[in-house]
């Protein structure tokens, strides 16, 4: 109860700050914030996939690339309206997510990680090689969604997408599916023996998280205006993993906060060059070693521990008074 209300209060305050930020911040930080929403969507959906369901995938940024490229090519190559092209990209993510989910049913742990790493690399290499289609490393231009130079509309669109993704994932976790996913993570055999259709739910979690990653990629492509295969390189996946793990791999708000904090920190420490990533790698190892569930759940727990004595104290005060 204590932790729940704390978490809700924190989320409400942060949402209010995020909503009001464009009033105070300059165009640079609005731009940075709009990119942060991209990472927030990726980190939170990866936390659902890897943290809750135990499917440690390295292919998450590849799904973002799939969404971004599909939507851009739908407009540029097929001449579709932007809305239709986006829908097509999402359908493609559903099909691909289901396919990958079905292929990896028998794999777990390091094998799953290696498999998804290889799939992700193959996809990225195709994007590099098929220059006629994707313009390779030159970058594929993507039409914008809003007229005008301001990033404010994108900022609010990104924020809205993050909120919607969080609501959808929270709803999913509050149903029986959430329990099933955790049961699969803890012991797949036991889960199956208890009558859970593990095949169905593993594919489901791949589809749901692939769709959110693809939406993030679609948003990012149309916002930035150009896509290169570097959107799916391993260090990008590392960034998403670090964000989710540092914030809390088993906490959706933790992953979002982790993504925003890590990204804002790395932007504000630009003057320190690669030291930022040295720090991030170190933080990743240290958090995993000493606070495996991430920093946000730790703060949550700490506030609960503090809230209890204070509640007791007020009762005593009342008695004394």
């Amino acid at each position, binding site marked *: 109860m204590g932790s729940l209300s704390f978490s809700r209060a924190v989320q409400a305050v942060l949402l209010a700050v995020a909503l009001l930020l464009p009033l105070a911040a300059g165009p640079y930080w609005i731009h940075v914030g709009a990119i942060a929403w991209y990472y927030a969507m990726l980190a939170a959906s990866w936390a659902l996939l*890897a943290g809750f369901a*135990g499917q*440690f995938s390295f292919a998450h940024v590849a799904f973002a690339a799939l969404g971004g490229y599909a939507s851009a090519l739908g407009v540029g190559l097929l001449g579709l309206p932007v809305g239709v092209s986006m829908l097509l990209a999402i359908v493609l993510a559903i099909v691909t997510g289901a396919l990958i989910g079905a*292929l990896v049913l*028998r*794999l*777990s*742990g*390091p*094998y799953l*990680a*290696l*498999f998804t*790493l*290889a*799939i992700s*690399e*193959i996809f990225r*290499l*195709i994007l*590099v*090689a098929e*220059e006629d289609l994707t313009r*390779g490393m030159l970058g594929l231009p993507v039409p914008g969604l809003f007229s005008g130079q301001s990033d404010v509309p994108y900022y609010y669109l990104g924020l809205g997408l993050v909120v919607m993704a969080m609501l959808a994932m929270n709803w999913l976790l509050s149903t029986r599916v959430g329990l099933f996913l955790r049961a699969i*993570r803890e012991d797949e055999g036991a889960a199956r023996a208890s009558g859970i259709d593990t095949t169905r739910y593993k594919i489901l979690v791949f589809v749901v998280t692939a769709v959110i990653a693809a939406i993030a990629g679609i948003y990012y492509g149309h916002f930035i205006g150009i896509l290169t295969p570097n959107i799916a390189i*391993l*260090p990008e996946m*590392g960034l998403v*993993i*670090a964000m989710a*793990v540092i914030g809390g*791999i088993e906490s959706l708000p933790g992953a979002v906060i982790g993504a925003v904090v890590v990204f804002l920190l790395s932007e504000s420490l630009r003057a320190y*060059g*690669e*030291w930022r*990533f*040295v720090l*991030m*790698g*170190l933080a*990743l*190892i240290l958090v*995993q*070693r000493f606070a*495996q569930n991430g920093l946000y759940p730790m703060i949550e727990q700490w506030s609960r521990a503090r809230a209890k004595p204070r509640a007791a104290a007020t009762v005593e005060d009342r008695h004394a008074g």
Partner: protein
Amino acid sequence: MSYFLLLAVNGLVVGLIYALVASGLTLVFSVLKVVNFGHGSLYMLGGYASYYLISGLGLPPLLGVVGAMVTLFVFGVVFERLVIAPMYTDKVERKDEYAIIVTFGLTILITNLALVVFGPFAKSPPSFMTGALIAGPLILPYDRLIAAVAAVVLLVGLSLFLKRTALGQALDAVSQSRESAAVIGIDPKRMYTVAFGLGSALAGGAGALIAPVFALSPSMGDLPAVQAFIIIVLGGMGSVGGSVAGGVLLGLVQALGVGYLPDPNRALAYTQAFGALLLVITLLVRPTGLFGRPHLRLE
């Protein structure tokens, strides 16, 4: 014909280096049941260690390789004790994910530290031996020849060590069953540390051997690491012979693919994608790999 021979020999040299990287990875996997996602950064670190040992202390190049292996052995032991060892206690949940995250974190840490400390520009250590072996149509620079021969010596040495020495057999025993090994008085935790140290030393040795052939850069470990993942899955986890077969196969496919396919950009991308595709197909169709040992099969 001579073009083919040239490509094939170069592919073979690179393949043997890949095999050496993969043998370290597979040793760590078979004993600790951990896939080291930081293996490529240890390879890179080995290259730089030998560079600084040679240029700083004035060691002869081959001793620089030995020094790099010793340095990386110590590094591996310390990292295993500090970060991986807690995995075997009850304090760590979700052990598979823990191992992936800390070793992957090591890559982020070391690669970026190398960018800051060593700089982004390529460095080239001195040759083992200048000149080239010329035999008919074949021209093979001595650096490549020495790297290949040293890789073979290390691979044979590793096989003999694992089969013929008490420590090697203890490592093998732990790889087959922790519990049974503990029953006959082998301390599995000590073997984990030894295996991780040796695996790091093999990666470092490979990086040091390739350093005079290709230049050193902080990202030099990325490609060999992915190749090593492919090789250990293809050749079979825990098999040194499988590492050699897989390494040579990948080295040849890449050299010949880049040499013969018409469009160089596509050729480079698709020869790399081919390896990744082999990994995907192997995991789906034959998870024990081509030469995998049955007790190390996929769970």
